[in-house]
């Protein structure tokens, strides 16, 4: 078994050992020591509109159910029957009055407590106690939400969600400020894309400002051409082509993009100032906001653009493009990514339409952009698979301020990784 000491040695100043990406034993540790300890994003309150609304979630490979209780609170339960361990809920989302296990019809309240057992007299005198949490769908130790974004931790002890998220919450605040009704909602379905690589490889690409004009040249070139030559794109497609072409930033431009580093491995990358949309619908929307916040604040919040904010290790929010991405490790070399879109409640339809186009363009399984990213992730995994060369370099930008051209955010992730992985259980 890998000792903590050995694990600590895998992350060194300026380099990490390939085993952190390829060793199944390390992956098992990551599940138990990182994902089971951190606050992991599991869903948004808008997905739980009424009492009994539920969605499924996964943390550290544990099957969970997130449910709205009658009192409006949100409970996160292990999706596992207290009787013989059966998966209680198979649907990905839905609504129930109480949960019912399909095997012997034990039922559970939305707080997970055992509610009823057919022919319970069979347990007379066995000390069977329906109030025993072990017989219910056990709730996870800690659940908290920040302005609608629900997180859970599988460990009872630890920092509060607010302390955990720290400055990353500004990304969420900004999105909410942009919503005329001050509310966000998950809408428009979800992409679930599997990548054949370790979960960290995805995270390490998150703010990588050096790769776009290189990796994405195969989509940048035709997109740029498409914006000039026929066939004439529809407005939506023109926007999509613009998004693709936008990967073609110069190194200088990328070097000017700051990436902020936060505790617990969180990071945030700024976005380019979006040229203000000029269509009438957008102007009308802007007026709505001004009515709510006043001109000055609206100017500020609309210019406060974030490309992506990473809630290490489980999710990232693309604040400006209104997208949530959830990282679900399945195996040392397999990761499921869920992509959700957020709707600014009260904003004109055209804005959400843009969000949908952007999700289709940037992260659908058919995304012209992601094709090349995902191919790269797999090539990184494959390149490190065999032994013989053991170290990965992480020195870029070690002496510079953190920008999208620096690997500072990767070092920040690994600093958190090392702390989680070596901290006593």
């Amino acid at each position, binding site marked *: 078994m890998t000792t903590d000491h050995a694990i600590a040695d895998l992350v060194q100043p300026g380099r990490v050992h390939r085993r952190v990406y390829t060793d199944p034993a390390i992956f098992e540790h990551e599940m138990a020591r990182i994902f089971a300890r951190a606050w992991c994003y599991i869903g948004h309150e808008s997905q739980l509109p009424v009492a009994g609304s539920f969605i499924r979630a996964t943390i550290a490979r544990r099957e969970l159910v997130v449910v709205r209780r009658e009192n409006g609170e949100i409970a996160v339960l292990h999706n596992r029957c207290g009787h013989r361990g059966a998966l209680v809920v198979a649907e990905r989302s839905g609504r129930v009055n109480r949960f019912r296990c399909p095997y012997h019809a034990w039922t559970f309240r939305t707080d997970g407590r055992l509610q009823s057992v057919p022919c319970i007299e069979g347990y007379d005198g066995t000390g069977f106690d329906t109030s025993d949490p072990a017989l219910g769908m056990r709730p996870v130790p800690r659940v908290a939400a920040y302005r609608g974004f629900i997180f859970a931790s599988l460990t009872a002890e630890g920092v509060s969600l607010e302390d955990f998220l720290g400055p990353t919450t500004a990304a969420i605040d900004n999105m909410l400020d942009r919503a005329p009704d001050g509310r966000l909602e998950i809408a*428009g379905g979800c992409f679930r894309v*599997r990548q054949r690589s370790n979960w960290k490889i995805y995270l390490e690409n998150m703010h990588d400002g050096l790769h776009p004009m290189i990796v994405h040249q195969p989509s940048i070139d*035709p997109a740029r051409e498409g914006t000039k030559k026929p*066939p004439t794109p*529809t407005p939506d497609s023109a926007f999509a082509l613009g998004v693709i072409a936008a990967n073609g930033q110069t190194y200088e431009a990328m070097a000017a993009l700051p990436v902020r580093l936060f505790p617990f491995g969180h990071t945030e990358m700024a976005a380019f100032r979006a040229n203000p949309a000029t269509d009438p619908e957008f102007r009308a929307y802007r007026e709505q906001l001004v009515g709510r916040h006043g001109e000055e604040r609206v100017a500020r919040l609309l210019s406060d653009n974030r490309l992506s904010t990473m809630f290490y290790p489980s999710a990232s929010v693309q604040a400006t493009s209104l997208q949530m991405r959830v990282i679900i490790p399945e195996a040392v070399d397999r990761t499921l990514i869920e992509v959700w879109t957020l709707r600014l409640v009260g904003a004109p*339809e055209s804005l959400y339409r843009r969000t*949908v186009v952007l999700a289709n363009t940037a992260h*659908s399984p*058919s995304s*012209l952009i992601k094709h090349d990213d995902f191919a790269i992730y797999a090539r990184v995994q494959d390149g490190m698979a065999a032994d013989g060369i053991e170290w990965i370099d992480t020195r870029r930008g070690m002496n510079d301020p953190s920008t999208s051209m620096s690997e500072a955010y990767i070092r920040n992730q690994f600093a958190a990784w090392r702390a989680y992985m070596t901290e006593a259980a």
Partner: protein
Amino acid sequence: MTDEAAVARFLYDEAELLDCGAYDRWFALFTEDARYWVPSHPQQTDPAREVSLFYEDPALMHARIGRLRHPRALGLPVRTSHLIGNVRTDGNAPNGDLVVRSRFQMIEFVAEEQRLHGGAVMHHLVADGDSWKIRLKRVDLANAGGVFELLQAFF
């Protein structure tokens, strides 16, 4: 050749162009206002309010073709083989387009791996001389709603 046989032949020829990588000639089969749509679930009716696996106008189709041919595109080449069947004309759309339904399976060979895709296809065809042009190609994958790896090729 009966009309349905002619339509079937048209769909076979369309598929062959994709399988041979003759993307330009395939692209030329579509009208200027065409859409290539792979919904994220069979009941999807609105590509603007829900995400789609593909939703492309000619400009985006053209960009995809550009990438498929780009010397630096990764995870390529992809080779496909379409098998088209159950071809049925199904009346006309409100705008008069001929509605054709079919089923397909497509073997995709990429990165030394063979994958199978399949499902239902609906074409909206516009008469064009003694042939047709495609105004809509909607592909409902059997596994729509599931987990996907990358989908680079047109179905």
